[in-house]
C-alpha cells in the first residue's frame, strides 16, 4: 500500500516525533554540557577540561565495574535462560505453569528486586540459614555489598532472566522444527541436534538477548546504589554523585556521554543481530 508523504509524516510524527524531540534534547544537553556549554550554573564556554578530569582512578574503576556488571549479568543470565528456553520449547505438562511463574520477576520493579534478593542474601537470611542447616558451610557467608559485586549480579540475573527467556523463546520458535525432526529421524542424539542445528540457528537471538541485558545493566543506577559494593560505584551512580552531591555537572555530563555512546554502540550491534534473526525467520 502506498501513501503520500504528507500523510505518512503526519502519522509518524505524534509517536516518533515525541520520542525524538525529548531524546534529542536530553542527549544534546549531555553532549553540550560535557564541553562546558549551556551550563546552568557558572559561566558557559567551550572547554575540554571536564573530559580531562575523567582521567582518574574513580572513573576507571567505575567504568570497569559497570562493564563487569553488564557482561556478567548478560552471560550469567544466559546460563540459566538458554537451557530453560530449550526446555520450554516443546509443550509438555507443566511448561505453561513454568512459563507463568518465570514471568513474575519481569513485573517486579528493579528496586523491589534488589530488596527481595538482599533479604535472601543477608547474614542470617534464608540462603545462609539453608546452607548452614545442610552443613555445607560452618559460618554464614558475608554477601551484602560485597567488593566484587556478586549481589548486584544475582539481582540482575533474577530480574532479567524472564526477559532473556522471552527473546530466546521467540527465536527458538522461529526455527522450523522439520530440520530438527529430520536430524532426529536420522539418529542424531538430542545433544547433537542442539549443538549442530539449534545453537547455530539461534545464535543471532542469543546475541540479541545478551546485548539487551548488557545495555540494561551497564547503565544501572538504582540496583548498584542499593546493593552494590561500597567502592567502586557504577558509572550512573558516579554521574549522579558528581552532579548532585559535588555539583560538577560538566564531569557528570562527560560520564553521561560515555554511558550513552557505549549503549548506542551496543544498540547498533543489536540492530544487526535483529536483522539476522528476521532473515532466519523468513
Amino acid at each position, binding site marked *: 500500500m502506498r501513501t503520500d508523504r504528507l500523510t505518512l509524516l503526519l502519522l509518524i510524527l505524534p509517536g516518533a516525533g515525541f520520542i525524538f524531540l525529548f531524546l534529542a534534547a536530553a542527549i544534546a544537553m549531555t553532549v553540550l554540557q560535557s564541553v562546558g556549554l549551556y551550563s546552568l550554573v557558572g559561566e558557559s564556554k567551550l572547554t575540554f577540561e571536564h573530559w580531562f578530569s575523567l582521567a582518574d582512578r574513580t572513573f576507571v574503576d567505575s567504568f570497569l565495574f559497570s562493564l563487569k556488571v553488564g557482561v556478567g549479568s548478560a552471560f550469567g543470565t544466559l546460563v540459566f535462560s538458554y537451557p530453560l528456553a530449550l526446555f520450554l520449547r516443546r509443550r509438555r505438562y507443566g511448561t505453561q505453569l513454568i512459563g507463568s511463574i518465570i514471568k513474575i520477576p519481569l513485573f517486579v520493579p528493579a528496586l523491589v528486586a534488589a530488596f527481595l534478593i538482599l533479604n535472601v542474601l543477608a547474614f542470617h537470611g*534464608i540462603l545462609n540459614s539453608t546452607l548452614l542447616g545442610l552443613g555445607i558451610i560452618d559460618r554464614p557467608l558475608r554477601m551484602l555489598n560485597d567488593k566484587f559485586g556478586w549481589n548486584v549480579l544475582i539481582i540482575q540475573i533474577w530480574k532479567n532472566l524472564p526477559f532473556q527467556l522471552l527473546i530466546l523463546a521467540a527465536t527458538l520458535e522461529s526455527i522450523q522444527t522439520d530440520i530438527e525432526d529430520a536430524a532426529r529421524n536420522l539418529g542424531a542424539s538430542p545433544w547433537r541436534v542442539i549443538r549442530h542445528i539449534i545453537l547455530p540457528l539461534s545464535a543471532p537471538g542469543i546475541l540479541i538477548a545478551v546485548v539487551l541485558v548488557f545495555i540494561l545493566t551497564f547503565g544501572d543506577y538504582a540496583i548498584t546504589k542499593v546493593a552494590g559494593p561500597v567502592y567502586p560505584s557504577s558509572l550512573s551512580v558516579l554521574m549522579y554523585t558528581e552532579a548532585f552531591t559535588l555539583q560538577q555537572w560538566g564531569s557528570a555530563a562527560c560520564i553521561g556521554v560515555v554511558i550513552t555512546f557505549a549503549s548506542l554502540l551496543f*544498540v547498533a550491534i543489536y540492530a544487526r543481530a535483529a536483522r539476522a534473526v528476521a532473515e532466519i525467520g523468513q
Partner: protein
Amino acid sequence: MTDMALAIPPPHIRRRIGLKGFLVGLSVALLLVWTAVPLFMAVMWSLVNPDDPWSPPAVLPPSFSLAQWEYVFTFSEIGKAIVTSFVLAPVVTILSFILSLPTAYAIGRLSFRGKEALRLLILLPIVLPAMVIAMFLSRTFYAFGLAQTFLGLVLGHTLLSMPYMLRILATAFEAIPQDVIDAARNLGAGRLELVRHILVPMVLPGLMAGSVFTFITSLEEFNLTFVIGTPTFQTIPTVLFDYLGYHFVRTNAAVVSIVLMVPSIALLLIAERYLKTEYLSSAFGKL
C-alpha cells in the same frame, strides 16, 4: 510458545514420561523457590512485631503483627505516593496510546523507507540508560519550568513507557493478514466497517498488552521521577528508594515493596491472556 497447539507427544517421548514428569516437577519446584522465596521473605519482614524483634537464630519472625503496615500508612509518604502513581500511570497510558496509534499504524501497515531506523528510534528510550536521560532531560525541564511539575512527570514518563505501546501496537497491526482486509473490501465493507469489525477487534489484544506494559513501566519508573519530581512529587518507587538507601529501614521497605509489587503482578495475572509471546518479544527484542 504459548500459542502452539497442544500436541500429542510422539511415542519416544511418551515412553519416558516418568523421567520427564520428574524433571518437570523438579524444575517447577526450583522455579517456585527461585521466585517465591524472595517474595515470601518480604512478606515476613513486613509483619515483624515491633515488640518482638526478628533476629537470628530465628528463621522466621517470632510473632506477627500489622504494626509495620500501620506505621507506613500513618506516617510515611506512601498515601500521597499511591495517589500520584495511580493518577500518573493511567494518564501516561492514555497519552501514550493517543500518540502511538497513528505511528504504530504506519509502522505496522505501511511500507516506506527508513522504517528500520524508525523502529530503532522508538526502542531507544527503553535501552538508553534511564539515569542519563533523567538527569539531562531535567536540565532542559528546569529551563522550561517543567521540573517539579506534574506535567513534567507526565511527559517524562510518557517518553520512557510509550515505546512499549508503540512497538506492541505496531506488531498487532502488522499481524492482521492483508487477505482478511481484502476479503472484507471485496464484500463491500466501507472504511468505518473495516475499522469496526476488522481492525479494532484484531488490534485490541495488542492494545491491552501495550497498555499493561506502559502502565507498569510508569508505575515502576524511578530514575526520572527521582530527578525531576522529588521532593515535590513522590511515587511509590521513590518512597521505596528512601527506605532502601539513606534511611534504610527493612520493615518499612518490605511494606512499600509489597505495595508496589502487588498491582503489577495482579495486572500481569489479569492480562496474561493478552501477553502473547510475540507481543512480549516485540516489546523488548525483535526489530
